[in-house]
C-alpha cells in the first residue's frame, strides 16, 4: 500500500487538500440550469470546512463533482493533487462520501457494509475485519453488527454511513447535508463524531443550510448562493464583519426625524453602525455596560415602540449579503 500513497501524495504543490478552480456546471435541457457558476475553493488539510447556503444554491452539485459523481461543464477539482475528472477511480481513494440519502447496501449486514467497503479499497480480509471491528466500536454500532440497514434508525444509519465512508482512511470526507432528517440528539452525536474525525487528521467538507451547524462545527465557511461563493472566512470573522457584537433592532412609532435619531445614536460610545430597517433602525454595537440604557433613552424621545437585541449570526451575515433569509 505504501507506494500508492507516496505516488498520490508525492508531488503536492500546495497544502490544499481540495482545490477547486473556476468550477461551472450547467445542466443542459429545455430549461438549462446553471447549478454552479464559477466556484473557486481552497480547503486546507485538517479543517472542517462548511458550504453554507439555501437549498438549490449549488452545494450538492459542487460536492457531486468533487466526489466524481458529476462531470463539470468547466473548471477543475483536485483532491489531494489528483484531478477528479481525469482520474476519477484514483481520486476516489482519497475521498469518503456520505450523500444526503441512505446508500447503505441493503443486502448486507451492518458489519458487511464496512467489511466489503474495506475490500473494495484493497484491504486484505484480515485488515478489513480488524478495521470493521474498530469502526463498529468507535461509532457505537457493535451491538447491531448483524442487523440489516433497513432495521436501523436514521441516526444509526447515518453513523454507519460515516463509519463506512472513512473505512479506507480517506484524506477528505464529504458530508452532504449530514443533519438533514436527524433528531436533535443524533445531530449532536454526529457533530461529535465529525470533530473526532478532524482530530484524526481527516479533512471534512460538509454542506448545510443550518446556520447553527455551520457555526458550531466549521473552522471555515463559504457562503454560497446561486452557484457562487459570496464570502469565505472563519465563522467568527464572518460574524465580526457585521460590525458589532450586539444588534439592537429598534421599532419606532412612525418615522419622525429618523435622520436625527440616527446621528444621535451614532455618537454613543460603543456604537459601530446604524442602519435603517423596515419600521425603524438597527444599531450595531460592541457590548458595553450602560450602552443599552443609553440607546433606549434616546430612542424613547423619538417614539420607541419595541426593541429586540440579538448577537450577529451567520443568518445576519447571509441576509446582509443577499437581502434574503436563508430559510426562504
Amino acid at each position: 500500500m505504501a507506494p500508492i500513497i507516496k505516488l498520490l501524495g508525492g508531488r503536492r504543490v500546495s497544502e490544499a487538500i481540495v482545490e477547486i478552480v473556476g468550477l461551472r456546471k450547467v445542466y443542459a435541457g429545455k430549461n438549462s440550469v446553471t447549478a454552479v457558476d464559477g466556484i473557486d475553493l481552497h480547503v486546507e488539510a485538517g479543517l472542517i470546512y462548511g458550504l453554507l447556503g439555501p437549498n438549490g444554491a449549488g452545494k450538492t452539485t459542487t460536492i457531486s463533482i468533487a466526489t466524481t459523481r458529476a462531470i463539470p461543464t468547466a473548471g477543475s477539482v483536485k483532491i489531494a493533487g489528483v484531478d477528479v475528472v481525469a482520474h476519477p477511480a484514483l481520486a476516489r481513494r482519497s475521498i469518503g462520501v456520505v450523500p444526503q440519502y441512505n446508500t447503505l447496501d441493503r443486502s448486507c449486514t451492518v458489519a458487511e457494509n464496512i467489511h466489503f467497503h474495506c475490500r473494495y479499497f484493497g484491504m486484505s480480509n484480515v485488515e478489513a475485519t480488524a478495521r470493521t471491528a474498530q469502526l463498529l466500536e468507535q461509532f457505537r454500532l457493535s451491538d447491531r453488527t448483524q442487523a440489516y440497514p433497513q432495521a436501523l434508525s436514521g441516526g444509526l444509519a447515518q453513523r454507519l454511513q460515516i463509519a463506512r465512508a472513512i473505512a479506507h482512511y480517506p484524506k477528505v470526507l464529504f458530508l452532504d447535508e449530514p443533519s438533514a432528517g436527524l433528531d436533535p440528539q443524533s445531530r449532536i452525536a454526529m457533530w461529535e463524531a465529525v470533530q473526532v474525525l478532524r482530530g484524526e487528521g481527516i479533512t471534512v467538507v460538509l454542506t448545510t443550510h443550518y446556520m447553527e451547524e455551520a457555526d458550531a462545527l466549521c473552522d471555515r465557511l463559504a457562503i454560497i448562493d446561486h452557484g457562487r461563493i459570496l464570502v469565505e472566512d472563519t465563522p467568527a470573522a464572518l460574524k465580526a464583519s457585521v460590525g458589532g457584537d450586539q444588534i439592537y433592532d429598534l421599532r419606532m412609532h412612525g418615522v419622525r426625524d429618523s435622520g436625527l435619531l440616527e446621528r444621535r445614536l451614532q455618537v454613543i460610545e460603543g456604537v459601530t453602525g446604524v442602519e435603517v430597517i423596515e419600521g425603524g433602525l438597527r444599531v450595531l454595537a460592541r457590548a458595553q455596560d450602560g450602552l443599552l440604557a443609553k440607546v433606549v433613552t434616546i430612542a424613547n424621545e423619538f417614539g420607541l415602540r419595541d426593541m429586540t437585541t440579538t448577537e450577529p449570526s451567520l443568518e445576519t451575515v447571509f441576509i446582509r449579503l443577499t437581502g434574503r433569509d436563508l430559510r426562504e
Partner: protein
Amino acid sequence: MGEVVGRGEDVRLVIYSRAFIGLMERDLRVLRREIAPFVIRIAMNPLLFLFVFTYVMPHMSGGASMSPMAGMAGGGGGFGTVLLPGLMAVAIMFSGIAAVALPLAQEFGITREIDDRVMCPLPIAAVAMEKIIFSAIQSVLAAALVFPLAYYIPSTPVLAHVTSWWFLSAVVVLASLLAGALGLTIGTSVQPKQIGLIFGVVIVPITFLGCVYYPWTALTHIRWLQIGVLVNPIVYMSEGLRAALTPSTGHMPEVMILAMLTFFTVLLTWAGMRGFARRVLS
C-alpha cells in the same frame, strides 16, 4: 499529474483488480445467503415446462400424438430433445434479467444503494462489467441445472450428444455474457416503475420468438418469421445450444451462431455500459 499516469499503470491494475474482486466477493456473499430463492428461481421454469410438455402431455388421452410438437424432433427423442437447449437458453437469459436488470432498476430508482459501489476505486465501466460477469456466472449455473431436470423428467429420454466440448463451452460462456449485457441494458434504460412492463414487452416476445420451443430450421415454411427472428439474440443462444447438445434436431450454421453471439454481446455490453454511466454520472 504525469507521474501518476506514467508510473502508475501497474499500481492501478492492482487497485482496480482488488476492487473488482471485492465486488465479486460481495455479490457471492449475497448470492450464497439467498441460495434457496436463487435455486427456486432458476429451476421453476424448466421444471414445469418439462413436466407439462414432456411428462403430463404424453400421458394424456391420445398419447404423445396429442402434443402439438410431436414428431418435431427429427432425429427422434421427443419434444424433450427440442426443449433441452431452448430451456437452457431461457434459463441463461432469465438469469441475466433477474441478476442484473431487476436489482439495478431498483437500485437506481428507489434505494440509490448502487452509489456505494460506484464510489469504488474502479472505473465505472468496470463496475458495470462486474455486474455482467457475475450475472454470467449465475447464468451458467442456471443452464447446468436444466440438465438433470431434462434427464429425469421427460417420459421419452432426451437425446443429447456433445460432439465438441469446446463449442459447447464457447456457446454457454458467450450466451451467459450476452444475457448479463442484456440485463444491464434493460436495467439501465428502463424506469423502475416500468420494469414490470418489461416482462410483457421484451421478455415474453424474445422468449417465444427465440427458437426456444422449436428449432430455427423448422421455420423454413414461414420464411418471413425465419428471417425476422434473426434480430433476436435469444435465437442464437438456443440455436447454439441446439448445435452443441442436440444437433440431430437441426440448427443454423455454427460459425454464424458464434459470430452473432459475439456481435450481440459486444453491442449490448456497449449499450449497457453507456446506460450505466449515464445513470450514475450527471
